[in-house]
């Protein structure tokens, strides 16, 4: 029987760990990490990246030690060796190497309308329940365009990095999470938030839907639709069509991500316009028009009427996120 070669396994494992770290680092540097992970989860991703680098280096050092040392220094049962004949070992390591290769080689792309079709579009905010709080003032958001949002995201990593230590410390040691639960308990506060937002939005001459206020505006339009009929709105998203749509109907939609794309939901607004027929699904479009009350599948939903549509580039951050994070 051949001896289990600790050195070689430690060595290969170390290199795979560094490969994972490089993959995450590459995604962060190119900014393409936004296609995979919600900004709110980024502290954990930085934690993973740094840990991978560290563990990778530790593993490679381990592989330079004398074989006997591991056996005596560690009083553990050796239950975690990679077992099996050589082909099995190769297969096991391939399982780890493949995601790294996929990550580097297959183009990073946002989810598209085929996923939206499978999941079903939520018109407006769905139940009007997915969105709560947000410390960000709406006025500020109103002035922001998607470019500013993108810039804000690029600045985010630093802020996240600084909060990372705090966050994970809390998480591990105290057994607490950093979110303040108490402040969210108040039902009145919830209604007040959207009440206030609705007030502020009514004052605006034109409602600008940004990446940051997307889900909030969807909720407000759901809750207080009557108040906004006849108002101008501008919104950006990808084009989507239901099978039963007429030629002049189109949906402008965004994916909303909480943690990762597995929990993606699709939130869209129905647009009725003569121009709709010119745009293919998955084209990113910028829509301006007037809000009206419409109906789809027996639900009252907001509709953008008399809309003008222009094709735009995909924003740097293709998804939107619940605002209270």
């Amino acid at each position, binding site marked *: 029987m051949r001896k289990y070669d600790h050195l070689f396994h430690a060595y290969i494992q170390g290199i795979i760990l560094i490969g994972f770290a490089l993959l995450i680092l590459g995604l962060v540097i190119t900014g393409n990490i936004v296609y995979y992970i919600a900004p709110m989860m980024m502290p954990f991703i930085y934690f993973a990246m740094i840990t991978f680098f560290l563990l990778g280096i530790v593993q490679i050092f381990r592989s330079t030690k004398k074989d006997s040392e591991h056996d005596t220094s560690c009083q553990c049962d050796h239950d975690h060796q990679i077992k099996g004949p050589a082909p099995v070992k190769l297969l096991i390591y391939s399982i780890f190497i493949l995601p790294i290769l996929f990550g580097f080689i297959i183009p990073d792309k946002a989810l598209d309308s085929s996923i939206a079709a499978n999941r*079903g579009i939520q018109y407006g905010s769905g139940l009007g329940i997915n969105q709560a709080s947000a410390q960000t003032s709406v006025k500020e958001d109103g002035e922001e365009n998607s470019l500013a949002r993108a810039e804000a995201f690029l600045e985010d990593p630093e802020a996240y990095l600084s909060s990372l230590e705090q966050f994970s410390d809390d998480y591990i040691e105290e057994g607490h999470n950093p979110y303040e639960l108490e402040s969210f308990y108040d039902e009145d506060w919830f209604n007040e938030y959207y009440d206030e937002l609705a007030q502020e939005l009514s004052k605006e001459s034109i409602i600008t839907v940004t990446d940051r206020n997307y889900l909030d505006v969807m909720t407000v339009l759901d809750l207080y639709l009557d108040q906004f009929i006849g108002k101008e709105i501008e919104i950006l998203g990808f084009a989507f069509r239901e099978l039963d749509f007429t030629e002049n109907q189109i949906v402008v939609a965004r994916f909303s991500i909480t943690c990762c794309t597995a929990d993606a939901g699709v939130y869209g607004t129905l647009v009725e316009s003569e121009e709709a027929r010119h745009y293919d699904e998955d084209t990113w479009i910028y829509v301006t028009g007037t809000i009206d009350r419409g109906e789809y599948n027996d639900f009252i939903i907001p509709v953008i009427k008399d809309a003008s549509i222009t094709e735009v580039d995909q924003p740097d951050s293709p998804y939107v996120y619940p605002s209270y994070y």
Partner: protein
Amino acid sequence: MNRKNNFFKDLIGLLLLFFFLILFLMSDTLNNNEMLNDIPRAWINVNTIFLSIVIEAIPFILLGVFVSALIQIYVSEDTIQRFLPRNAIVALLPAALLGAILPLCECAIVPVVRRLIKKGMPLSVGVVFLVAAPILNPVVFASTYFAFRSETTNTILYSRMGLAFVLSIIIGGILYSIFKNSNQLRSDVTVHHHHHITNIQKPTFFTRIRDVLHHAVDEFFMMGKYLIIGAFIAALFQTFLDRAILTTIGQNDYSSTAVMMVFAYLLSLCSEADAFVASSFGRQFTDMSLVAFLVYGPMLDLKNTIMLFAFFKSRFVITFMITVTVVVFAAVVILFGFIL
């Protein structure tokens, strides 16, 4: 001969590292590669969701393996024996409470439970941890609260938390009555075998840190492969399963509950985010089926089934799966059919 062999091995490693570095430096060019743009969009979506789940779960797996490694190095079997009540049934209640304190999700809990059982913790207590910890934690509480914000009574939130607590004890009890505290871990290593006194001098702080890191890596490579396989299968379902089919199947109370449980199993969502997915179904599904989705998913899903099969004996895992499924379904039906 041996020397040649070593040289060859070094070369493999170096080539792999070199390969990763090249990919890292070229990733921008690769991303804009025309040739790769011909990959069908569906498969790019699979890839996006697959990587998304893997990258998302990795930090939590790492947390899990670190906690497990710390337990391995710092918590002795005697300590565990001392703190646990002698009677396994009596231990179930404190176990559920402890599960509520541990902020570990379903990815992180498996290595921790496995390690604790290896250290001599009763199987039934481990089972309670396994099903209680992913639901009964503050992050999940908060996300469920938000997702079902518009519900003034918070029925879903309290049903989810309440059921998780009660059912974890029931499930622990049932599995205790079947398996007692027999060893159901797959590894043939017996639990109490090493009282060897090879290390006479006390390990220094530095060697302990080193041991923790080494253990963490070993365990990451053990757990990681199952996570990656599970994530891939989940990504396939996420991409190709048309959710409209579910709504047509799930018309009545019982069938929609069953459908949502199957769905929770296949999607393998993180328990921190599943409430948002559930709330997006809200229009078509009853409270009963949504609660079933939210209780069943974190207790049992595709990605942790693969991990369970790797670490526990098949007979145990199958019994565990049947128990959890039956108990959750029955409890939800009783709760929403007769009590609420």
